[in-house]
Every structure is written in C-alpha cells, then in structure tokens.
C-alpha cells in the first residue's frame, strides 16, 4: 500500500541541491516527484524516484545523509474537492498528517502522505475506498 521515498538532509547553501541531483543523474535514477521542506539553515529534500534502494545506497556511498521511508501515494479524483475528500478521510479518523505533497502522473493527481499512525491510516484508506499507488504503478526507467 505504500511506496518508498528518499529523504535527504541538505544545507541551505548554493550548490548543495545541485550536488545531490548530479549524483542521481550519474546513477541514472529518475525523479518522479520531489519537494523540499525548508528552514533558514537546511532543507529536507524528499524524492519519489525509480529504484529507491539503489538510489539510496549510491547516495550513501557519496556521503549524503539519506534515509528511506514509506509513504502513501493516493490517487485523487480529477475533479474539484478531490483533495478535500482524501484529507477528510484522514482527519475523520483522527490521523495526523506529518507532511503532504502532490504531483501529476499521466494526468492524474497523486498526493503523497506521511502520517504519524501508519496502521490507522491503512485502515482508513481501505474503509474510505481510496486507491493507493504501488511502486509498480510508477515509471521505473527512462
């Protein structure tokens, strides 16, 4: 029900994002979605990509602070209120959303969620009839 996401600690300095992206380019890893949670001094660069395991180990080898976590990738109804309905299912179940970001895949809106209660989230997703992407749904290579 979940997909793997890379989280990378980068300093808020010119060149640090570029370095990570160059490493991924060299390893032929495709980025499917990404976002940065930024603060004044650093950022957490979160990435959905092809071959997350290989990406993680190659970044680690290059000395990058990177971790893998499991996140929900939920497909939205392509109509007004689609996002509200998904988030509504979580809040009704009293599940906190740690962070969220969204991207388009083949014209469909996908929302990535990390929650503080993964098991309760699974139940709510099943109960709410939401469709979660698996890694098999993602483009694997260019």
């Amino acid at each position, binding site marked *: 029900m979940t997909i793997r996401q890379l*989280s990378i*600690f*980068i*300093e808020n300095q010119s060149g*640090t994002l570029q370095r990570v992206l160059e490493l991924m380019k060299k390893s032929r890893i495709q980025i499917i979605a990404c976002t940065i*949670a*930024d*603060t004044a*001094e*650093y950022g*957490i660069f*979160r990435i959905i990509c092809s071959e997350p395991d290989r990406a993680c180990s190659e970044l*680690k080898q290059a*000395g*990058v*602070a*990177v*971790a*893998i*976590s*499991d996140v929900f990738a939920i497909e939205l109804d392509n109509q007004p209120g689609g996002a509200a309905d998904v988030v509504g299912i979580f809040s009704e179940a009293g599940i906190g959303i*740690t*962070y969220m970001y969204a991207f388009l895949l083949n014209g469909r809106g996908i929302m990535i969620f*990390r929650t503080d209660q993964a098991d309760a989230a699974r139940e709510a997703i099943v109960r709410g009839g939401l469709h979660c992407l698996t890694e098999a749904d993602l483009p694997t290579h260019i």
Partner: protein
Amino acid sequence: MIWNPNKECMSREQMRELQGKRLHKIVEYVYHHVPFYRNKLQEMDLSPDDIRTIDDIVKLPFTTKKDLRDNYPFGLQAAPADEIIRIHASSGTTGNPTIVGYTRKDISVWSECMARCLTAYGVGRNDVFSVSYGYGLFTGGLGAHNGVETVGAAVVPASTGNTEKHARLIRDLGITGIACTPSYALYLAETMERLGITKDQIKLRVGAFGAEPWTESMRTEIQDRLGLKGYNLYGLSEIMGPSVSYECSEQHGSHINEDHFFPEIIDPVTLEPLPVGQTGELVFTTLTKEGMPVLRYRTRDLCSLLPGECPCGRTNVRMSAIQGRSDDMLIIRGINIFPSQVESVVLSMPEFAPRYLLVVDRINNLDTLQVQVELRQDYFNATLDTPAAIDELSKRLAAKLKSVLSIGVKVQLKAPGTIERSQGKSTRVIDNRKLF
C-alpha cells in the same frame, strides 16, 4: 589617590624582601597542608627551607588548570573546611569546574586588593557604583562588590541582565562608576541610546572593565559613548578573582598587587623564565592565600611585564594588556570556554560526527557562539525527515552545551563531510572578534 601607599609604593628592595619572606611561608604552609604540593616538592628533592628569597621561586614546580581539575573538588585546599567561608567555581574543561575556597582572611585580602584597584580608578566614598559582573559562582560580581564596600562607595549590585532597567538606574540614581565586561559596556551604551538616555543625563565617570580581553579601540569607543574613563581590571578565580591587577590614571599597563600575587613571565614551551619586557605566559604564585594557595599557576594568558617606573607613583610592577592565549581557551561574554568542552558534549551524542567548528562573533557588541556539527550519515533515518525532528535534535545539543558552557549557543547542523577535518586546534575555532 592611592589606597595603600605602604604596599603600592614600596621600594623595590623592600618589596622583594617581603615577597621572599611570604614565599617561604607559603611554601612551608602548602608543604604541610596540601599533599599534592608536598609530593611534588619531595619528588624534586626540595624542602621549604630551600626557598628563602623570591629568586628561589624558579625552583618550584608549576601548577596547571589540569592539576586543579584532577584534584576536584578540595584536593588543593590548604585550610581546614571550617575556616572556609566562601566557595566559588569557574568553568571546567571536561565537566569538573574549578573550585576555589576562601578563608575570612582571603576575603579580606581580596577586598583590600579590590579597594586598591577602585582607588586607582578614582572611586571613593562619594561614588555610587554599579557592579554589573554576574553575581554567583563567577568571582566577578561578589569580588568587585566587596571592594566597593571597602572603599566606602555605595554599591548597586546590578549583576547582569535586565539592561534597560539598569540603564534607567544609571540615570536615576546618578551612578558614577560601573564594573562590567567591556562588551557589556558597549551593549549598555547601545541600550541607553535606544532608550533616548543621553550622555549629559548620566553621571558615569569611571568604568572598571575586565573578565575578557579588549582593545584600545574598544576603550576609545566605550569612553566616547558613555562619557567615562575606562580602566582595565584583571583577575582570575584560580588566583583570587578580579583585583589581581589594575590600571592607574596613566592607563598604561596594569599594576599587579604583587605583595599578594607574584608574577612571572615564562616561555610557554621551554617553561624557562623570560627577562622583563619580553612577552610570554603569565604565571602567578599566591603569596598570602590561605584557602587554596597555588604555586606558579600557569594562567595561559600571554603578556609582558613593563619595565620602569610609573608616573602615578606606584612602584608595583605593571603587566601589559593580554595579547593572546597559550592554549585554545576562548573568553565569550566573560565566560571561559574550551573547545574540548564542546567536543566532549558532541562526542556524547551518537547523532553527530566527532567533528565540530566553533564560530565566535561579536554582533551588536554581544559575543555569540555558534557550534557547527555534522549529522552522522548512519544516524540519519526516516524519523529525522522533518524539520521538527531535526530542530528537536539541535535543541537537545544546544541545551547540553548550555549546561556545560554556561552560555547560550547557536547550533548549526551540517551535512556529513562538510566540516573540514581538523588539522590542528586552530581549525576548530573561527574567532571573528579580532581582540588581540
């Protein structure tokens, strides 16, 4: 004015004779009361009878900060516990602070020495004097306080903090003198300007500045902005506290209370005494201390002793301004900080790599300390992938550092491998203050 011409204006011969007598006495005293010194002297095949004149001091062993730390808390105390009436503590390098106990006579000598300082600055019975060193374990506050009471001025124990209230008190009480760190004086000047308190509304005329190194340009700025004359006040808790030496109206070198604290300048590498006028490490022997006397204590402060007579009439020797340190100690807001203290905290947290960088700045006349540490790559995991989790981690480090260093620290987390590997001690510290 001179508080005690009998001691401050002694002929050199009389002074050396007095110092010699006192040195013999103190060596005999520690030999019989402090096993640490007895063992040291015995190892060197020395007995108190070998120390007859002040020139014999070169035969004696040195005492270091490490010795004080190793003998924590009371190992170097010479007086029996019931004779001790006050205990101060200064920051230690690896957790153990330096403990200094004072007997009633020590406090009385301290007050006398401090009175000499204040009198040299022109402070007397008619002054209202604010002590703005921290009151507490640090010797600055209470040390200066006793001296102000001794000369008979009215002491205002302002301590540190609440600068706005303090600025108003300076105006409203007609405070004429202040003892504080030079950087605090500048901060105070700034606060007054912000509150619209002008120089002609205040009566400050004397500043006793110490506990951190300062420059002539700082002196000019403080004097100009607060409309007072600023004098150096030097001291260290291991020897006594503030009052070890003091500037006179000449503002050229600080007279040492050398009938109580005998100064030497040594080469910090060979440990050989250096001739007068040469710069080296300042070493003090307490000649009259009862609570915790020290023989040839290495201050790690670099300076020189000034040859020649002072036009003020005092004959006690002067030391130059401190020109640096022979170790890596930093003085930040009057607090002594060793990089090794930061290191021990960083090493105690597995989340961080054993590399760090201290960045010291002076922003708006207040010293700031930033500690840069690297996140350890293998410790970065999925639970750390939010700013809240990372911030919690750096707050935890900042809190630990604060409890060890006694000052607030700004922690900056760096990515793995971004702090240059240390080639020597100098690369662990970037001091942007340019104090020496």
